[in-house]
């Protein structure tokens, strides 16, 4: 009994204190992984904020964007043009989704819309693979996947780039939401559909804009994840990784997605490295969920979620 308590409560901290450089390395790894999750989670948050749709297809949108980009690059299209074309494809996709999925389902219950995005998920997966093929592709965007050492701590260049990109993207999105006219309209729609409509905000346009922005976020996420682990089907599964980030940070909060991502990323890495061996490892799959679950019991609306006020 004493041994177990020691192994769980004392030994891991002793390990941490024993080699601080390694701890820092683990923490940095966690931060990077967390920011990558945040990138995916951001796409969810944007759509949920503006239309109340829990977009299950976000993961496949990431895959689709990455596949399109790689497919274009393989055909010899220059990088800048390929990026522009991929953006155009994602915007077209947003138009199509608004027209053929959201508009006919307006005013339906949340679970129906959720289900519709699962249908979309299947459709896009088949469509993307049919267009560009299903084999694993390498995405080379010119950032070398190598590490440099600062004061005995290894830092991966690619991960650093991804982290900076994520930070930049979040700042841009926050500005977009707070300062621009469309951003304000988006927030109005998120707050109250009918009130927004009554003061003349075009709902359909807003939806297209939001899905387009989510598409662009998907491109960035696809770019980073693709460069890290190749463009393949498993890319769509990172959506599952983003879910605990979402509930931790709150569905409606952009900063929440970032902070949630960081907590999950760090918690996961530290848990795996220091406590994982105690139970046989491979706890990364569920650790994030259990962490988020425990957290939700204390704070049901997530870290930054809007306070839930319920009336009869």
């Amino acid at each position: 009994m004493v041994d177990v308590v020691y192994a769980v409560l004392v030994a891991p901290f002793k390990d941490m204190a024993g080699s601080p450089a390694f701890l820092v390395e683990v923490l940095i790894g966690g931060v990077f992984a967390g920011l990558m999750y945040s990138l995916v989670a951001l796409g969810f948050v944007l759509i949920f904020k503006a239309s109340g749709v829990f977009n299950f297809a976000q993961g496949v949108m990431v895959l689709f964007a990455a596949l399109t980009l790689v497919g274009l690059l393989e055909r010899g299209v220059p990088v800048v043009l390929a990026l522009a074309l991929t953006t155009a494809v994602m915007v077209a996709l947003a138009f199509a989704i608004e027209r053929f999925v959201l508009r006919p389902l307006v005013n339906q219950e949340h679970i129906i819309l959720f289900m519709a995005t699962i249908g979309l998920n299947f459709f896009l997966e088949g469509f993307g693979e049919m267009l560009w093929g299903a084999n694993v592709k390498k995405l080379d965007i010119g950032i070398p996947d190598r590490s440099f050492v600062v004061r005995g701590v290894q830092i991966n260049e690619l991960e650093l780039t991804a982290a900076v990109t994520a930070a930049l993207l979040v700042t841009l999105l926050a500005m977009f939401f707070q300062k621009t006219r469309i951003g304000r309209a988006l927030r109005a729609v998120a707050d109250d559909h009918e009130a927004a409509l009554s003061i003349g905000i075009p709902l359909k346009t807003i939806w297209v804009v939001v899905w387009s922005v989510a598409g662009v976020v998907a491109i960035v996420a696809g770019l980073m994840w693709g460069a890290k682990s190749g463009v393949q089907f498993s890319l769509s599964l990172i959506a599952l990784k983003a879910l605990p980030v979402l509930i931790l940070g709150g569905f409606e909060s952009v900063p929440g997605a970032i902070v949630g991502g960081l907590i999950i990323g760090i918690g996961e890495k530290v848990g795996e490295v220091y406590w994982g061996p105690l139970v046989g490892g491979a706890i990364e799959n569920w650790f994030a969920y259990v962490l988020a679950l425990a957290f939700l019991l204390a704070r049901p609306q997530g870290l930054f979620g809007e306070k839930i006020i319920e009336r009869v």
Partner: protein
Amino acid sequence: MGRLEVIYREAGQFKATYASDQAIFPIVQDRVVVVAIAVVAFVVPPLVAGEYWLQAILIPFLIYTLAAIGLNLLTGYAGQLSLGTGGFMAVGAYSAFKLTTAFPQLSIVVVFLLSGLVAAVIGLGFGIPSLRIKGFYLAVATLAAQFFLIWLFNKVAWFTNYASSGTITAPHRTLLGVTVTGPNASAAARYVMALAFVAVFALVAKNLVRGRIGRSWMAIRDRDIAAEIIGVRPLRTKLLAFGISSFYCGVAGAELVFLYLGSAETLAFDINQSFLVLFMVIIGGLGSILGSWLGAAFILMLPILLTNLPHAVGLTMSVALQKQIELMVFGGLILFFLIVEPHGLARLWQIGKEKLRLWPFPH
């Protein structure tokens, strides 16, 4: 059409007592048809249907129907979205395996019921967060059950009796002198067993949802605070929904291994299984027992149909291309059905019934 609507008329069927008003099937024709279907289902397929039909279509259909009814009780009636179905099915399967290998003389029916109970207890545990969180937050939280349980069964060798392959295999068991599980069990015997289970449990579910428990579930689903104010206890009601739903899923999981797959590893209960059952419930119709049957049939038949259709019309294409087209059609059809009828196949059936009632006068 000409004959059917004359037969399907409820004019003249008066309900003179409360008992007849509250009957499961208030219309005589419904009663007759359901009993007839049940009798035919027990007798005809085992005699007529070939091995392929029983093994590839009918047995999985019955098992998934049971799981879909279970999830429908939780999601459709009590309004608690769950993505942990695969995990609860795994609990049923693994506890059935442990129970029957530890107590070989125990009747296989008792084993199934007990493993359902084990799943129910686990379900209760993972249902506790539902008291604090709702909607999609809850759905994501139930994913914790899915991932944690699968990981547990993978990691702890005790669950598979230290099998080096990590799989559980249905041992040879008999019921009333007939082999029902194991490699020697005939498809017909397994079919009848699965049918008996799903028939009994569908009846139980139908009774649950029209009684006190079902009504309190629906009250919680429709307006939880109002329900609480009029005296429905949320704690008991929600946990009961999780427990009973997990019981159904647990039995279905045990059946999946013992009556259908024969042997399985945790991969058989991964997240896709949870989504599959959720599709069945939503496509079939949330809050409808009939919908669970229709949804399971639809979702299971569709891939089989899509696989065979190109052959039937003489098209040949590569396997990869066919799989991609299958995915697209599958996704497209889900979207199509949701747009045409968001309340599922059960609602289509109901509309058809209403039309039949008024025929030939539309108003």
